[in-house]
């Protein structure tokens, strides 16, 4: 006899775990299916955890979640080939509990999160790949898996199957992702003794630093790089739009090697041992690239629904929030005795629209196109800024007025007066559009 559940959640990442946990807490009969050996073994993230989104799901998560370091300092570097211009923000405020942001290691964190879902009553099936959705007309009635006799039924399926979102594609719910709507990131984890990390980054026990980077480091492609401190390791990576990788024929790991060899980054990694290399896609297409995220008996949460705010490096918090909202939609409707169909599940979209998720995605809807059409934000300006800093800092007998003039003319020469004005306007529009 075929098994039947209230809800099947596909995937045990941030969105899937948030959904499964929330549903199980409310007493629904939940099956969660994960293709990895353990939850987290297929998941890749930088990774920074934003406490707020998780707090709203598991308020006391700090008691036992595997957290690496809480962040007390944010560094932003605009790099040229041999230099960077940067800014730091560090505050004791970030050293007061409850902490706001943490570095995490996803393989560890996801196991913890998934255990919470299991403890709440969700049934979790690992090492099982969902191969297709089972459809009755347009209605999703369950999933087919690669297990023997692997058809399982449910009243609703939450697709939290990650950026590739193969299941919704196979079912015809949305098209293949375009190279311009997705970034490819590669990263490595490097181990160092805890004390070395703390002295190298000027931090105390459990304190962490983030370095966000842009500029020449992405070789003219639209993208950014990062370096995060964990307890006994450093993760660093670089990501650029896939369309740029394709256009410019760049090999991702060579880009990463070049990054590690930058004179400002190399000393931070000195003596470390690299223990894993990972690659992952990030759906950064934004508002205009988002697919339909609900229908008869199905909902999409997390990366699969392109819920990523690329400009602010936010994704996992959107994943958790969308997973939670999807679950709450089902719980509410069930309480009201309503069926889970396309009409009633529109409430999920309403909840999304009403939350920071869609408000932010809408606010920055112009940004992807503006940056795509203006690659000089990633090439010309970093160069100009670094040269300007060099001119100002170097003491060489040239008077300051002449220095100012040469900096000014370098900017005008590179972009023209009108171009500079236009760029300022475009930047404003990317960040301020309502």
């Amino acid at each position, binding site marked *: 006899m075929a098994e039947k559940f209230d809800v099947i959640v596909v995937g045990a990442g941030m969105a899937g775990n948030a959904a499964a946990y929330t549903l199980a807490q409310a007493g629904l009969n939940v099956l969660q299916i994960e293709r990895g050996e353990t939850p*987290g073994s297929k998941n890749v993230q930088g990774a920074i955890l934003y406490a707020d989104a998780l707090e709203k799901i598991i308020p006391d998560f700090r008691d036992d979640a595997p957290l690496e370091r809480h962040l007390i300092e944010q560094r932003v570097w605009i790099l040229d080939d041999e230099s960077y211009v940067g800014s730091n923000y560090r505050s004791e405020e970030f050293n007061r509990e409850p902490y706001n942001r943490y570095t995490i290691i*996803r393989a560890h964190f996801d196991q913890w999160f998934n255990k919470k879902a299991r403890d709440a009553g969700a049934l979790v099936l690992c*090492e099982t790949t969902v191969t297709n959705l089972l459809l009755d007309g347009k209605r999703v009635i369950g999933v087919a898996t690669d297990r023997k006799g692997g058809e399982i039924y449910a009243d609703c399926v939450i697709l939290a199957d990650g950026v590739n979102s*193969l299941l919704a594609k196979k079912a015809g719910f949305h098209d293949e992702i*375009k190279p311009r709507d*997705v970034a490819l990131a*590669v990263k490595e984890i490097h181990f160092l003794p805890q004390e070395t990390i703390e002295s190298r980054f000027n931090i105390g026990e459990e304190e962490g630093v983030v370095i966000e980077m842009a500029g020449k480091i992405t070789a003219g492609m639209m993208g950014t790089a990062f370096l995060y401190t964990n307890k006994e390791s450093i993760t660093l990576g670089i990501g650029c739009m896939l369309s740029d990788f394709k256009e410019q024929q760049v090999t991702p790991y060579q880009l990463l090697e070049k990054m590690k060899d930058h004179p400002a980054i190399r000393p931070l990694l000195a003596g470390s041992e690299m*223990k*894993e*290399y990972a690659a992952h896609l990030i759906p950064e297409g934004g508002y205009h690239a988002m697919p339909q995220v609900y229908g008869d008996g199905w909902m999409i949460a997390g990366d699969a629904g392109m819920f990523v705010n690329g400009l602010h490096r936010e994704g996992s918090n959107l994943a958790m929030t969308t997973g939670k909202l999807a679950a709450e939609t089902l719980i509410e409707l069930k309480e009201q005795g309503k069926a889970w169909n396309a009409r009633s599940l529109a409430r999920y979209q309403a909840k999304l629209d009403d939350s920071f998720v869609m408000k932010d995605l809408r606010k920055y809807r112009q940004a992807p196109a503006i940056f795509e059409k203006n690659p000089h934000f990633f090439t010309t300006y970093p160069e100009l800024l670094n040269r300007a800093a060099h001119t100002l800092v170097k003491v060489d007998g040239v008077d300051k007025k002449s220095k100012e003039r040469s900096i000014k003319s370098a900017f005008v020469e590179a972009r023209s007066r009108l171009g500079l004005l236009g760029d300022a306007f475009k930047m404003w529009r990317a960040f301020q559009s309502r």
Partner: protein
Amino acid sequence: MIKVEEKLFQNRYRVDAGRPHITIKDPQLCATGCDKKQCTVCCPAGCYTEEGNGRVVMIADGCMECGTCRIICDEHRNVEWDWPRGGFGILFKFG
């Protein structure tokens, strides 16, 4: 130049021998219909290599399951791409 194999050596895999989850649909199309062969450059695991005769060979053993090759082959859609069977493929220790 570093070899990607040195990086992949650090990773943990359970290879599903004889059942690659990615295949090239029509190898002839890669040889004669595609100039860029972006898969041979952009795959972060270096799974795709161009042979002397212009053919592209795909070996999925080091695949990190990112999806790049499928999405980047947007003119020809010549990559058959599915997940490995449950429990197989890359197993991230840290992610």
